[in-house]
C-alpha cells in the first residue's frame, strides 16, 4: 500500500438553522480544502461523501453526484457513505484505500448535514433509526436513551455512585463548552456553561440532561487526500493517515455482557494503533465521539487512555485539557462545536490535521508540539471508525 496524506482541509461554520443547503455547504468546505493545496477541479479523481439525513432534511437523496458535478469534478465516481454519525470517518477510510491501492492519486472526501431542518421531533425519530428498528425501537429507544442505559449500567458495573458520575459528566460538558469558545466554527462559540447548569438542565433520558447531549447541527467538512508523491507537490506539511480501524456492533442488548465497554471500539482502535505502530501513550491529541457526556468517559476507556471505570478521572484531573496528558476535544467536541452527523468524522479529522500543522495558535486552542493525533467516531448502534494521523515533515 502507498502512503496517503491529507493535503487540504475545509470546514464551514457549524450551527442551527444555517441558511445554506447541504450541497452548498459541502462545496464551500471543499473549495476551501482545495485552495489550501492549490488544487483545481480537473485534478480530482473521485468524491466520497458522508450524508445521513438529506432525504428527510431536504428531500435530497443521492447527493454525491450532484456535489461532484457542482464542484466541476465532471463525471468522476462519487459515492455516498451512510454510517450514521460515523459516515464521514468511514468515507475517509474508504477514500484512503482507493489512494493507497494506487487507483487514484487525488480524491476529495468529507460530509455534509442539515439536521436542524428536520426539527427536534423528526430529528429524534430519524436519529433513532440508528437503533435496531424491530426489537429496540419498539420499546421506544432513542439515541440519548442508548447512552442513558449505558450510564446506569456503568454506575452499577464499576460501583460509581450516580452523584459522582453526575459530577464527572458535568465537568466534561463544561470543558467542551470552554474550548468551544475558542473555535470560531463552533455552534456554541459564544456559550460557556457551569456544572450547575448541566446538572440542573431538563431531563432528556435519565440520567442525561439537556447539556449532557450534543445539539442537532448543520455544517460540512472536507479533506483532500493525496498519494505521497502527489502530496509532495501540493503541500509542505502533509499529514499522513498512518492507521485506520473500523468495526461493527450488533444491537445494543446483544452487546452484553461486554457492556458498558464497547467491543467494536476496542477492536477498531486496536487496528488503527497497530497499523500506525503506536500505543495510546503516543497520542498527543484526540477528538473522540462525545455525543453524550457519558459517551466521552466510555470512549476514553475503550481507546486505552484510562482503565475501565476510571475514565471520568481524566477530566477531574485536568488530563484532558490543552496542556494535559491527553488533550481531548479541544475543538469543543460534538457537544460545543456541534454534530452535523454526516460531516462529523471529517470535522474531527480536519481539527486534528490543523492541530498537527500548528495552524491554531491564533485561536488559542493550539496543542503545543502535537505530532500524532487520533480520531474516534461512533455511528448509531453499531459502527466505530478510528484514524491515526501523523505529521509528515
Amino acid at each position, binding site marked *: 500500500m502507498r502512503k496517503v496524506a491529507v493535503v487540504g482541509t475545509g470546514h464551514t461554520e457549524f450551527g442551527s438553522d444555517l441558511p445554506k443547503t447541504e450541497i452548498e455547504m459541502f462545496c464551500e468546505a471543499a473549495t476551501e480544502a482545495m485552495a489550501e493545496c492549490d488544487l483545481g477541479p480537473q485534478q480530482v479523481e473521485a468524491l466520497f461523501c458522508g450524508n445521513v439525513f438529506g432525504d428527510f432534511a431536504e428531500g435530497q437523496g443521492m447527493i454525491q453526484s450532484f456535489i461532484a458535478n457542482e464542484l466541476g469534478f465532471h463525471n468522476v465516481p462519487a459515492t455516498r457513505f451512510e454510517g450514521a454519525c460515523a459516515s464521514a470517518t468511514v468515507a475517509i477510510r474508504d477514500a484512503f484505500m482507493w489512494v493507497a491501492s494506487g487507483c487514484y492519486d487525488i480524491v476529495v472526501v468529507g460530509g455534509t448535514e442539515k439536521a436542524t431542518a428536520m426539527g427536534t421531533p423528526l430529528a429524534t*425519530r430519524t436519529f433513532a433509526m440508528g437503533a435496531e428498528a424491530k426489537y*429496540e425501537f419498539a420499546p*421506544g429507544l432513542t439515541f440519548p*436513551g442508548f447512552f442513558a442505559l449505558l450510564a446506569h449500567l456503568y454506575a*452499577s458495573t464499576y460501583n460509581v455512585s450516580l452523584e459522582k458520575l453526575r459530577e464527572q459528566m458535568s465537568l466534561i460538558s463544561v470543558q467542551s463548552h470552554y474550548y468551544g469558545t475558542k473555535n470560531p466554527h463552533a455552534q456554541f462559540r459564544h456559550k460557556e456553561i457551569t456544572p450547575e447548569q448541566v446538572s440542573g438542565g*431538563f431531563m432528556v433520558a435519565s440520567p442525561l440532561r439537556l447539556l449532557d447531549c450534543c445539539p442537532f447541527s448543520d455544517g460540512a467538512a472536507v479533506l483532500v487526500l493525496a498519494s505521497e508523491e502527489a502530496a509532495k507537490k501540493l503541500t509542505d506539511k502533509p499529514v499522513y493517515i498512518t492507521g485506520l480501524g473500523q468495526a461493527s456492533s450488533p444491537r445494543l442488548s*446483544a452487546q452484553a*455482557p461486554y457492556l458498558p465497554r464497547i467491543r467494536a471500539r476496542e477492536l477498531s482502535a486496536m487496528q488503527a494503533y497497530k497499523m500506525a505502530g503506536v500505543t495510546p501513550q503516543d497520542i498527543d491529541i484526540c477528538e473522540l465521539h462525545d455525543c453524550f457526556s457519558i459517551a466521552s468517559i466510555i470512549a476514553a476507556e475503550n481507546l486505552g487512555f484510562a482503565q475501565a471505570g476510571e475514565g471520568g478521572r481524566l477530566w477531574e484531573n485536568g488530563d484532558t485539557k490543552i496542556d494535559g496528558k491527553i488533550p481531548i476535544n479541544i475543538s469543543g467536541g460534538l457537544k460545543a462545536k456541534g454534530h452535523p452527523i454526516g460531516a462529523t468524522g471529517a470535522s474531527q479529522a480536519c481539527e486534528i490535521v490543523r492541530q498537527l500543522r500548528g495552524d491554531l495558535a491564533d485561536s488559542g486552542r493550539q496543542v503545543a508540539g502535537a505530532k500524532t493525533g487520533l480520531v474516534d467516531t461512533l455511528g448509531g448502534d453499531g459502527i466505530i471508525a478510528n484514524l491515526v494521523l501523523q505529521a509528515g515533515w
Partner: protein
Amino acid sequence: MEYKLPFRQYHKALMKNQLLGLKCGNCGAITCPPQMSCRSCSSYDLEVTQLSGNGKITTYTTIFVAPEGRETEAPYIIVMVELDEGPWIMGNLYDMAPERAGMDLIGRPVTLGSRIFPGDRYSDGPMARPAFLFADKA
C-alpha cells in the same frame, strides 16, 4: 437457508405473552430476540424454543423526550433485562411511576408481559414489545 424465527412469528407469540428464542444445536446457547446466527458461536444450526420470560433488570432509563409520533407515551421506562436463559433483551417497565425509577431497579427480578407499538409512518406495521412486571412484588 430459511430464517428460523422471523420477526412476525416472534411478534405474534409475544402478543400472547410468549417469548420465543433460538437454541443452538452447536453450542447450546440461547439467542433472543431472533437472528440468523447463534449469538455465541455464529452457527446457523438453530431451533425455535420457548423461553420463561423471567430475568432481572440490568439497566434502565426514563425517556422524557420521545421521537415524533410517540410524544404521548413519554415519560416511559426502558429496561434491559438479563433473561434466566442468558440473553439480554430490551423492553419497557410499566409497573411503577416513570419519574421514580432509580438505581434500586438494577437487579430486580421481572417477568414478561407485552404491549403493542402500533408503528408509525416509517415502520412496517405494528411491533410487540416486552412490558416487564416486577416478579418480587407482594
